[in-house]
């Protein structure tokens, strides 16, 4: 029920109304609206109840297992939030002086250093406000690099088909033509085709590793050599950094630039549209183009590197330095874990995924790449179930909701029919993983005994099966007062 439907004409809420003296009265006449705005008229208690009830309907990591592959829905430790809420962080103004902000600047500097350590790159900027902006920044730097050398012919970015959908979008936004590189049957980049496609027009290659197929790219050094030999640069989509932290560094793989999704790997708040953070790391050749400001240190003093220090920078991505509150949380997360803890994150993320993969295989579930070890996520294909029982991956996903688990990512990647992309993350206990595996097995039983129960799921959620097709075809996003 919408809050508008609880509204009663004439009901007012004086305690929440603005006081007389705060009324703004200098708005020019022609900018004033003619009609009253359509706002719900409810009491304070009604508003409180409405939003509390909505929050109770939330299906979140704080209430349930949430194995949404590619998204890394891991637990955000409460401590990160607690320390980020310290008044010194919370009340700091972005324009306060460097002299009074040495503590904050030191945290940001140390975060930069920790990201360098994890990625093996040479310089980091924390500016990008989200993973997508991090990608944009990375490709903009690749473009600036080629332009600075007068290498104007390089108009193409290569993107393997197992990449995140944002990669081709980023390349297009930066004015490049996208060339797709297919994946071979084992989930690796098809190196033969890559060799044919690279050339004097290649500006770079964007690679997600581990890929969206939940496997580590085995030809990574060969891919690096092919692209660099052709004069292109290598972009590392660090979306899946969670699986490799402390184990292997993109810098050591020869990559020129990487972005990191702090909301995934560093457990800052996730979803709901932000705020996010997508720092970029670069090697020596892209260092001059790094977005500003970032923190530099000279004899124990921290300050911002700005336009004067970095004349060839691609510039600023926002007025200031990025989402400070999110970056602080990532910093605290990394400090709490330490270098050894970071490595254990990757080990447990991978162990949990492989444990689930094996247990599901034992129960007769098909894997998309049965011959490969999973990284932090793996792909199940329910094609046989669809062909035999007419029960789709979507049906099983909905039935999982009835059993108290968030569904994994469905129908992604598109390369695999009737698929689930399952990512348990490192923060789940074995009991939780076992509970999901049992629920999955129960559902497979149900498809034999009572397939309609699965086809019409969910049965116990606040709303039943949604009509996704109608929702997309007949967009209806604004409330209208039908009574007028």
């Amino acid at each position, binding site marked *: 029920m919408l809050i508008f439907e609880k509204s009663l004409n004439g009901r007012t809420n004086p305690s929440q109304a603005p006081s007389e003296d705060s009324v703004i009265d200098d708005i020019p006449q022609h900018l004033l609206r003619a009609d009253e705005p359509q706002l719900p008229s409810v009491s304070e208690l009604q508003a409180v109840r409405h939003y509390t009830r909505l929050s109770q309907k939330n299906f979140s990591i704080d209430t349930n297992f949430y194995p949404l592959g590619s998204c890394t829905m891991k637990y955000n430790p409460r401590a990160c939030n607690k320390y980020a809420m310290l008044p010194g962080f919370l009340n700091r103004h972005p324009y306060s002086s460097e002299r009074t902000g040495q503590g904050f600047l030191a945290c940001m500097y140390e975060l930069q250093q920790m990201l360098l350590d994890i990625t093996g790159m040479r310089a980091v900027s924390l500016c990008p406000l989200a993973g997508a902006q991090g990608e944009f920044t990375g490709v903009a730097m690749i473009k600036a690099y080629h332009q600075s050398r007068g290498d104007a012919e390089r108009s193409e970015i290569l993107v393997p088909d197992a990449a995140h959908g944002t990669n081709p979008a980023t390349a297009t936004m930066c004015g490049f033509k996208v060339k797709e590189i297919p994946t071979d049957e084992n989930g690796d980049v098809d190196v033969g085709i890559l060799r044919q496609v690279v050339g004097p027009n290649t500006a770079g290659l964007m690679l997600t590793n581990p890929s969206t197929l939940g496997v580590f790219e085995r030809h990574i050094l060969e891919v690096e050599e092919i692209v660099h030999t052709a004069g292109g640069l290598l972009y590392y989509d660090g979306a899946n950094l969670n699986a490799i932290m402390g184990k292997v560094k993109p810098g050591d793989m020869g990559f020129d630039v990487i972005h990191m999704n702090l909301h995934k790997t560093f457990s800052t708040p996730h979803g709901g549209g932000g705020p996010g953070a997508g720092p970029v790391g670069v090697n020596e050749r892209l260092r001059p183009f790094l977005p500003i400001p970032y923190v530099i240190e000279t004899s124990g003093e921290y300050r911002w590197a700005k336009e004067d220090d970095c004349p060839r920078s691609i510039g600023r991505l926002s007025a200031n330095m990025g989402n400070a509150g999110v970056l602080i949380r990532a910093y605290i997360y990394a400090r709490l874990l330490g270098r050894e803890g970071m490595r254990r994150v990757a080990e447990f993320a991978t162990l949990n995924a492989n444990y689930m993969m094996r247990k599901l295989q034992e129960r007769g579930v098909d894997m998309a790449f049965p011959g490969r070890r999973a990284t932090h996520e793996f792909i199940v294909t329910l094609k046989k179930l669809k062909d035999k029982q007419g029960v789709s991956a979507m049906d099983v996903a909905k039935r999982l909701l009835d059993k108290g688990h968030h569904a994994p990512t469905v*129908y992604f990647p*598109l390369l695999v*029919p009737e698929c689930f992309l399952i990512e348990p993350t490192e923060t789940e206990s074995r009991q939780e993983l076992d509970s999901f595996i049992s629920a999955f097995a129960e559902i497979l039983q149900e498809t034999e005994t009572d397939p309609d129960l699965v086809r019409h799921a969910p049965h116990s959620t606040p709303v039943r099966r949604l009509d*996704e*097709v109608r929702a*997309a*075809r007949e967009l209806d996003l604004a409330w209208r007062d039908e009574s007028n």
Partner: protein
Amino acid sequence: MSEIPSELRYTKSHEWVRSMEDGHLEIGISDHAQEMLGDMVYVELPEVGATVNTGDDCAVVESVKAASDVYAPISGEIVEVNSMLSEAPETINSDPYGEGWLFRLQPVDDNEVDELLDAEGYSEVVEAEN
């Protein structure tokens, strides 16, 4: 198994091509493609008069699962688009080889059609995917 009419030509990327009496070519996506994509919700068609080269992305079909590019099977000029699809994209699901056609083009070189897959060749492509 999806339907693959024998009188049409196909691409590996799941477009079909029909030679029309007036020399134009009609292009759509195969039954297999619409089945994989699921319920269509939006279609973006090329501009009439635009020239396209073989392999160019020239239309987009969007389903509840994904948005997917449609590629020009051969080079030519777009002469007509199926604008009815913007109101009823589901036609691609119900009649992929008929009312669900996407656009028509005037080919630069008629012989290019012969280089496309025939029904048998295309059914092997579909087989290999399964």
